[in-house]
């Protein structure tokens, strides 16, 4: 309980903690560390590509950077940072005192850390250099004898187990531990995002776990799952990998959709428009997301009827995604928009994610994809979705929830400087890459010929990437500085709608002394109304649940 004298402090309390908030913070610290590593890898690649036939980085190192960057950003940043925000805020937003399985929760986090360490240890022998997709037979022992591939296999197993255990924990928590009165239709949309993210992780991860196990036995124990000479098939790898890999894309965006659906209404001073449509479209995207994996394989030897199916299923996803975008704009429509930093990033998210969505539909047209596949057009597309989308959303979430996590506000001016640097840098880096792809530049090449006319665009892209990096550094600086010197936040600095703002910032170990009864999807609005009506402090308005829960 709050105020008890034996509350643990010091570094041991972090190592041994099962408190969802501490675990959530450790997720965020660790993943941002990996985010910086992945970012440095990206900048090195951009330096190498700044001019044609550059010799700054040798081919071996370049392909290792390609592989480490993709792997780091996906498995060690975007997916686990969302688990971090989920860990911190799911119990707070549903009015629970912790996750359902606190020790399992700690295990999930430490598995992630060890997965990352195992993978990065390969830097000291031979890092893998097959791209984050590890296509067989290139990743087989005949072509990649180094142990870097094995380090990656262990990373997939460790982070995969971490994610599955975390996902089971989220599902159990969200299904069973919601505050009294919080029915399915009153659950915050971020909780919907995390719930469906969890289901997708449970459904998709076994496929990649199986695939990497098969790769491991192919490499070391003489099996031939992917070896043509032994009757195996390289396409099997691609199917198993993408059966996981495409849902993974939605795993990386659905909780971010949830964050945006929380932030836009708060800063529009209006309820979210079409709550049920947004929640239902999240489920629809997840379901359809399981049925589109082979759109990554449009150029493989596959019958046209199969390609047509995957084109149509990919088109179908555009519909629920479009519904979300329209609902967010409708939420802003005739609102009273308050432009604090979280809103900047949320609006930037919508503007950029839309471009990724449109280029996604264009590359789902499979005859067109025969030109676009494996080019910088696709690099641009995934970064508009994962950086312009997910990362901008994560930054919106960081600025939005930092006051709750630290008890202090982040600096608004630095936040806006960071946003504009990131917005300009991001679009400068990636918009021209569409053109590069259309002009025939394949992805993952360590250099390019000088006569192809790709020099200017690559230089623009490289300059943009450093502006983007500067913007990110401003936010990191802002966060570090604000922990000590930021303005005190108080319980509810944004006049927000959800339950995490009911409790002090940062929340006490038990989260809530009293858990209010939930009467709508915006409990804080109800509480503020009651407080205003009764003229009493918030704590006494809430109806405590029975003692002992």
């Amino acid at each position, binding site marked *: 309980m709050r105020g008890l004298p034996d509350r643990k402090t010091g570094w041991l309390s972090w190592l041994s903690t099962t408190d969802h908030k501490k675990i959530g913070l450790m997720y965020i610290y660790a993943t941002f560390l990996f985010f910086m590593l992945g970012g440095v890898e990206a900048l090195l690649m951009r330096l190498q590509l700044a001019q044609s036939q550059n010799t700054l980085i040798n081919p071996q190192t370049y392909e290792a950077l390609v592989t480490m960057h993709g792997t780091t950003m996906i498995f060690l940043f975007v997916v686990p940072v969302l688990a971090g925000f989920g860990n911190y805020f799911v119990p707070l937003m549903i009015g629970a005192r912790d996750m359902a399985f606190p020790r399992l929760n700690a295990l999930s986090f430490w598995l992630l850390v060890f997965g990352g360490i195992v993978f990065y240890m390969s830097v000291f022998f031979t890092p893998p250099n097959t791209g984050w997709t590890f296509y067989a037979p290139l990743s087989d022992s005949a072509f990649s004898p180094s142990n870097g591939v094995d380090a990656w296999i262990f990373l997939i197993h460790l982070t995969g187990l971490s994610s599955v255990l975390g996902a089971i924990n989220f599902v159990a928590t969200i299904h069973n531990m919601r505050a009294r009165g919080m029915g399915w239709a009153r659950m915050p949309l971020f909780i919907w995002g995390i719930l469906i993210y969890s289901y997708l992780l449970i459904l998709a991860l076994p496929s990649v776990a199986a695939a990497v196990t098969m790769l491991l036995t192919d490499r070391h124990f003489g099996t031939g799952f992917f070896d043509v000479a032994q009757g195996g098939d390289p396409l099997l790898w691609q199917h198993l990998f993408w059966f996981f890999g495409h849902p993974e894309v939605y795993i990386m965006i659905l909780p971010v959709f949830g964050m945006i659906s929380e932030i836009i209404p708060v800063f529009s001073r209006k309820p979210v428009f079409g709550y049920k449509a947004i929640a239902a479209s999240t489920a629809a995207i997840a379901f359809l997301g399981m049925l589109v994996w082979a759109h990554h394989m449009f150029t493989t030897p596959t019958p*046209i009827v199969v390609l047509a199916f995957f084109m*149509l299923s990919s088109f179908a996803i555009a519909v629920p995604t479009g519904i979300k975008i329209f609902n967010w704009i409708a939420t802003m429509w005739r609102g009273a928009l308050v432009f604090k930093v979280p809103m900047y990033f949320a609006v930037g998210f919508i503007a950029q994610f839309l471009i990724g969505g449109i280029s996604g539909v264009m590359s789902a*047209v499979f005859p067109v994809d025969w030109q676009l596949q494996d080019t910088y057009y696709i690099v641009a597309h995934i970064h508009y979705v994962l950086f312009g989308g997910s990362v901008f959303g994560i930054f919106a979430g960081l600025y939005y929830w930092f006051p709750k996590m630290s008890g202090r506000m982040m600096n608004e001016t630095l936040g806006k400087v960071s946003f504009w640097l990131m917005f300009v840098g991001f679009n400068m880096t990636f918009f021209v890459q569409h053109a590069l792809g259309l002009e025939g530049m394949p992805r993952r090449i360590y250099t390019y010929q000088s006569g192809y006319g790709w020099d200017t665009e690559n230089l623009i892209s490289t300059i943009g990437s450093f502006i983007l990096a500067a913007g990110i550094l401003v936010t990191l600086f802002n966060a570090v500085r604000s922990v000590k010197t930021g303005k005190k936040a108080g319980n509810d600095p944004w006049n927000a709608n959800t339950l995490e703002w009911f409790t002090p910032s940062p929340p006490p170990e038990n989260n809530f002394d009293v858990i209010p009864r939930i009467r709508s999807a915006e409990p804080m609005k109800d509480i503020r109304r009651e407080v205003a009506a009764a003229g009493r402090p918030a704590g006494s308005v809430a109806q405590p649940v029975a003692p002992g829960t």
Partner: protein
Amino acid sequence: MIPRALPRRRALILALVGAAALLLALAPVASADWFSPESGGSPNANDIDTLYKIVMYIGIVIFFLVEGLLLYSVIKFRRRRYGAEPAMVHGNTPLEVGWTIGAALIVAIIAAITFIYLPRIKNPPNSSANGLQQFAGEEFASVEQPKPPNGKALRINVVGQQYIWRYDYIGAQRLTENRPVYAYYQMVVPTNTTVVLQINSSDVAHSWWIPKLGGKQDAIPGHNNYTWFKISKPGVYKGQCAELCGNNHADMLAEVRAIPPDQFKAWLVSQRQAILQSQQALAAQRKAGEGQ
């Protein structure tokens, strides 16, 4: 209500400036060729280019519509000091149904257009009258790719290997007394002739791609993949491997040189001669080696 007139005018001006800037930024997108796939070498590349542009125009309309609404909201609905509290609207079912159906209709239209263009992109046509059809008359088709209407095309097998492309002219062997003719890196083909490619790999996955001659097709060990092109303009068309195949993936270049059919026949003979000579030279070397 009093200070409303000025912000509204300012908002309108801002909106106009924003829209003009966006238009300026995107005007080249709509017209210039650097923002659509490469084309001009082969009819399938041209059709992909056209299909891409149609979808892109639809995309640009949606882009302007949605970004316009977003920009308008950002400017118009900022909180004002004396502004009224916004109305607490929770949703609107007809609107939800409307934009769901609207979005579904748009993708249905794109799907329909795709299926209209698909046969022209996928199916090889006949060689022209001034092509090499009288010789390259091999009947060749696969489940994946039908043969040209008259059945005749020049067939070349493309084999990817780290880090070079090999071309086997198996469809032209009747011009060389059924002796094998092959080449590396540069593929020489006759103009105005439908060339059908059967693509596979002898080691890891590669992807065959000459942007001006149409889409790429992956070379996967244990599988055959197919594509075709038909070049009317003599010249050299460049490309490179598009699937990461190892550290030197960037060095796996390829080019197609199109020459008139008569010159092509002469090239076949000389290439056959060159292969023969190098084999003889190699045999002589081996013999010399044995003698030592």
